[in-house]
């Protein structure tokens, strides 16, 4: 049973400099894939331990096996051709992946994410959030030579991801999150993105989250703006949670989201992942209380703005600990004010 205001992460976890170097060594052909795999196993276990120690209710594998949010998936999708697979830095995007022929989707070959989930499941007893980048953002890193319209490529990628989501659900995934880091840069295309999200989620009976932020490449925002661009299209998305960035940008958009009709759960970003300054627990609590003025407690999930990938490990640990401490402080206040109705506690996770 999750507590009210459950705490979780968005996905990625701190990648220390030594791991960056080892990952880069792999992309420069200096260490083998099996060695890198063992390194990743150790890193994932450590990331789980860190989250558990911080008191996070719903943990992730930290996406530590991934080179970045895009290429880890593109490199596994049959039909996506990557001309040069050597990188000077592991986190860089591959140059110009190409889809020259329509993707095989009947059925698409598996991507192997289920194995990643299975490993995580074996090493923690806590609920797990498993994230993957959505079709809209994946398509934006591909040269499309196969489809007449870019939207058709987005739909085809969505079908590939739908098959993978089914495989994840089959091995026990209960909370899946689609990340669309590019969406804020193309506000006019929300309709296509939502259509593709619904293809991904179709027939997969899990709790679905949708994470939209303003970018976190190299700890920098890629776009600016407000979340009103998501509406009304996002109301048609078959997802249970919107996981959004507020800690860095401020909470003005909360009322906009509520006014425009979002009545499902909200993943409330309360930790700015683009600064190494650690928020105090009091500040976190204040941010949550501010959100409670707009959203009921049963609708809120507490998380950082985005992945913690670019933060040093000690900072990531401190931020998560502060987030948990601030959340607990608010829970105490709430429990004094009114008793928690049992069903509400599950609504926020959406299960």
């Amino acid at each position, binding site marked *: 049973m999750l507590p009210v205001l459950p705490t979780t992460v968005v996905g990625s976890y701190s990648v220390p400099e030594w791991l960056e170097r080892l990952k880069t060594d792999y992309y420069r052909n200096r260490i083998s894939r099996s060695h890198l795999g063992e390194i990743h196993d150790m890193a994932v276990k450590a990331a789980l331990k860190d989250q558990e120690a911080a008191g996070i209710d719903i943990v992730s594998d930290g996406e530590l096996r991934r080179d970045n949010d895009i290429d880890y998936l593109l490199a596994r999708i049959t039909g996506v051709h990557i001309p040069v697979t050597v990188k000077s*830095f592991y986190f860089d995007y591959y140059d110009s992946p190409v889809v020259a022929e329509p993707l095989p989707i009947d059925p698409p070959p598996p991507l192997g994410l289920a194995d990643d989930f299975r490993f995580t499941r074996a090493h923690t007893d806590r609920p797990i959030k498993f994230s993957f980048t959505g079709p809209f953002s994946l398509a934006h890193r591909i040269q499309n030579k196969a489809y007449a319209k870019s939207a058709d490529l987005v739909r085809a990628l969505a079908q590939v991801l739908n098959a993978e989501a089914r495989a994840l659900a089959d091995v026990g995934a209960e909370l899946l999150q689609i990340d669309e880091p590019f969406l804020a840069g193309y506000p006019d295309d929300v309709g296509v993105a939502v259509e593709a999200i619904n293809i991904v989620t179709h027939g997969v009976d899990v709790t679905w989250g949708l994470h939209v932020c303003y970018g976190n490449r*190299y700890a920098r925002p890629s776009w600016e703006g407000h979340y009103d661009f998501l509406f009304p299209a996002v109301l048609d998305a078959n997802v249970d949670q919107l996981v959004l960035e507020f800690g860095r940008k401020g909470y003005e958009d909360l009322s906009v989201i509520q006014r425009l009709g979002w009545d499902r759960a909200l993943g409330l970003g309360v930790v700015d992942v683009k600064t190494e300054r650690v928020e105090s627990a009091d500040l976190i609590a204040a941010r949550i209380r501010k959100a409670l003025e707009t959203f009921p407690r049963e609708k809120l999930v507490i998380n950082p703005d985005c992945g913690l990938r670019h933060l040093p490990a000690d900072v990531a640990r401190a931020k998560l600990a502060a987030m948990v401490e601030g959340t607990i402080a608010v829970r105490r206040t709430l429990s004094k004010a009114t008793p928690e109705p049992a069903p509400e506690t599950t609504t926020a996770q959406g299960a």
Partner: protein
Amino acid sequence: MLVDFRPTGKLRGSKPVDATASLGPVLDALAEDSLDLSRVRVVCDWVQYRNNFRDVVDIRPIVAAHGHESEVMPVALSAVMTSDELEVAIDVRRSGDAPLKQLTGDLIRAHAAGANPSRIYLEPWVATRSSVIWDFNALYWKALDLWEQVTGQQYEKTLPGGESDARNRDAVREIITNLFMLWDSLAERNALPDELYVVELGPGNGAQAKTWLDEFTALDRAHGKEYYRRLHYLMCDYSPHVLELARAAVADHAQHVSAFVLDATQPRTALGFLGYKVFLVYISNVYDNLPTDEVAQIGGRTYTVQSRAYLPSCAAADIAQSVSARPEQVPGLIGKLLRLQPALLAEAMPAHFPSVEMAVEFWRRCWAALRLEERYQPLAGLDLYQIAPTVSGESLRPLLESGAAIRMHVNNGAVASFTDTIPLLHPYGRLICHDLFVTDVHAYRTGFRGPGKYDGSVVNWLNGPLLAHIGRRRGFDVDFQRFAHRTGTNIVTMTAQVRD
């Protein structure tokens, strides 16, 4: 013994250097001593800056690693290490008329004795970025008005070419035209902010800002989008005097210009509110004037170069006489000069400095005589060496991992400035920097890149590959192009912009 003759290009051409004339006397002096010659390296440079911190020949001890340092060195690396203990450095450019054999012999004997009586030291061994030469450098910018009054020459005239390349109108127009194209495309997507920020670090006397703003106004009028109305041009400099000059120069644009006194190595202390908002950061000949260490790889081991500033005894005696002091008092007087600045120094010590002009003259003479003695201090590990507040020495690894011998700049101040500036850039913003960049690490193996003296300030070339590497790790493409709008210049334009 290894002899490293770096200016190989000087061995050919119409006036080739006679390497034997430089090397012969030095080798003779070494041969006459009891040193283990197998542990001596001899390096020859062509020191580009006529005013610099080196004597024609000098020796640099190579400090042995021991204790903590040797324990943390990987075994495989220590196995290939040599154990040189001394480097003899010759400035080939000035060696022709110098009594090299005698100078070298004197230096070796002084080294063996553990003290050099012909030098009056101003500081203990320190990382070069912490040397007193940077206090002189800071004083120059703080008291530039006094320096210029006494010399009768504005600092810009002392630059190669007599003016900053940032004033070049063709270059300015190219930058502004590119900005307009970007802003037009953002405006089409309703993504152009209301406020358009441009930051200039190191505006000099304001002439370059004026050029930029005048050109901007003219081009904006022709373009017809009224971007000038939304423009905020922020001039930032360490020197209030420089900023005052700059403000006066751009008085016609006062409504659009703000001035900030700040340390270029920490721009966000004053400009943090502009995070991700600045479309252009414009920097000209600032980075080459910021404190720097050097690192060296010798025999497979990595060292930092430590320095201690000194005055040659004879120069110190002359300087002392000019201010009615004894030579041993000169270091103390220099300390007071650097703390108080010339005007207050004259007030505080009238017996030595009857006028401010005398204090400035003392400053100038000390600066002219100032030298750096160097030694190589082993690094226990790259991770233990901090380049800048957010950059560890690990960033040097790609440049050193070949194991080849090299000595290169770290440009700590420039790295600090660069890494603290790029967070200001809008996702489509650019940092454009005109400066003296080494664009290929190999260039450090064939040329001397500083430190040198520009008038009253320090100049060092910049380690372009290091800045590019650090920028790439932060998601920026960093590109170097030779300055396109003036021929015969060493200036290179570095451009950094977000990669994806």
